[in-house]
């Protein structure tokens, strides 16, 4: 039971990050490695703010904007300084490593007995008795759903239409008299905002910050996006954002099962990489088939 709950908790926290990767990878066609730095950025900010007694809700808002700023810088490096997309992300990811260390002050920070999203007066009043074990999963579900619906809403606005257009066909954005560079920067800002928000929640749920938390964020997020979009492609009533959330939970479940079966946790990243490669290859195959049929 605890295992299932923790799969759902972590799966949905990572789902918010995966939604960000869905924007950069699927919509913008931009392999954004900034996320490996912006995820722990959220965790670091969260740890420091919580330690200093900042309202947990406020940490979410602050994290989103900090991440959006990081994404904007990546976008500026790519668009204005004309650095290749992958390299822009790598530069930013490397820079963020130091930024995160500076924010947290050290490589790890525990968060015990603090007022967090999951441990506060309000939560202990509402979730009593039999409901108590479900407090975390319900809180995370609510936040994840809010973010999903906000993203769905944004994608249906004029600005969101342009974001989809720029990944689909850059030329059309220029034809509409809009600077395609700005549209890309907005996309990267929103995406990294979501990733940092996810890191912020993750630190509060895990009750610690660690500088290496972000390693592999990109791969986990991509795996979730690809699992979600390719497995649930046939289920047409689901929005893609919903599929991504489900994909993230499925991914976490796979990892949890692997550990349960006795896989040593230090092998996790290797398994993650191999699993991702397999998913990627299968996903590519499907894409080709679709193109041939079209």
């Amino acid at each position, binding site marked *: 039971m605890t295992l299932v709950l923790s799969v759902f908790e972590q799966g949905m926290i990572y789902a918010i990050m995966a939604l960000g990767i869905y924007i950069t990878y699927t919509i913008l066609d931009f392999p954004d490695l900034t996320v490996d730095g912006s995820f722990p950025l959220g965790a670091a900010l969260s740890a420091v703010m919580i330690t200093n007694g900042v309202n947990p809700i406020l940490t979410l808002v602050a994290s989103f904007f900090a991440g959006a700023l990081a994404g904007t810088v990546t976008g500026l490096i790519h668009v204005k300084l004309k650095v290749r997309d992958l390299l822009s992300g790598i530069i930013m990811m490397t820079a963020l490593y130091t930024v995160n260390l500076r924010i947290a002050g050290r490589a790890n920070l525990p968060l015990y007995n603090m007022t967090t999203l999951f441990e506060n007066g309000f939560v202990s009043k509402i979730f009593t008795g039999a409901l108590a074990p479900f407090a975390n999963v319900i809180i995370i579900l609510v936040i994840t759903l809010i973010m999903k619906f906000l993203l769905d809403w944004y994608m249906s606005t004029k600005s969101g239409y342009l974001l989809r257009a720029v990944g689909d066909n850059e030329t059309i954005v220029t034809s509409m008299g809009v*600077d395609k560079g700005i549209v890309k920067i907005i996309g990267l800002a929103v995406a990294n905002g979501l990733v940092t928000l996810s890191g912020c929640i993750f630190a509060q749920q895990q009750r610690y910050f660690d500088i290496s938390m972000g390693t592999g964020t990109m791969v986990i997020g991509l795996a979730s996006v690809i699992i979600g979009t390719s497995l649930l492609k046939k289920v047409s009533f689901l929005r893609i954002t919903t599929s991504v959330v489900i994909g993230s939970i499925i991914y976490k479940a796979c990892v949890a099962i692997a550990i349960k079966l006795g896989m040593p946790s230090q092998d996790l990243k290797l398994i993650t990489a191999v699993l991702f490669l397999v998913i990627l290859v299968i996903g590519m195959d499907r894409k080709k088939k679709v193109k041939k049929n079209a």
Partner: protein
Amino acid sequence: MLELKNITKSYNPGTINEICLFDKFNLTVEDGQFVSVVGSNGSGKTSLLNIICGTIPIDQGEILVNGTNITKQKDFIRHRRIGRVFQDPSKGTCPEMTILENLAIADNKGKGYGLGRGTNKARIGYYKELLSGMNLGLEDKLHTKVGALSGGQRQTLALLMATMNPIEFLILDEHTAALDPKTAEIVMELTGRIVKQKHVTTIMVTHNLRYAVEYGDRLLMMHQGKAIIDKAGSEKQAMKVEDILGTFNEISIECGN
């Protein structure tokens, strides 16, 4: 009025592959004029359009619109008064988005892309009306992804999207070249109708000499960065395909085509 003054443009300057395309090229297009541009490959037709649209920079010279110098203006700003249709049908539309979403994006051109609803439901009737004027049956497929349409349907949609807003210039870059003869005919007829209706200044590059003769009120033949034929008004109206075919063959032989 669009004026190109003393345009100089070379590719790969400073290398042994340097190609001087335009050397002090001049062109003036009056408001409302429909210019057809023909010429062999590499004669500078598409470069001419790219220079007007700001897609490629020029080395020297000036581009003026109604007397205002726009030489330094960025491409996306210039496109605010330009509608453009490309040879490749996929360039003028978004394949992953539906017909309705594509039209909605085009409809918003010049009105800002903020956080309002992407598709204005009240405009759907108008879109359907526009589409039914194309006679392709697209008005019943508003929720179909554009990627699923044929090249001709996509190009028609692209033409519609490029012209549904008030624009000053319509730039057509061999926009019928990738289509089968029948579809090309339909798209061309539609183009003629739209240009007449909107009275928009149009520059059309084409490889089809018949279209160049039949449509438009001015004809340019480009060769090695120069306009070797430039006929307008009654002179243009009197022209026949045979008249320009001779010149076209001469320059083509020269180029080894």
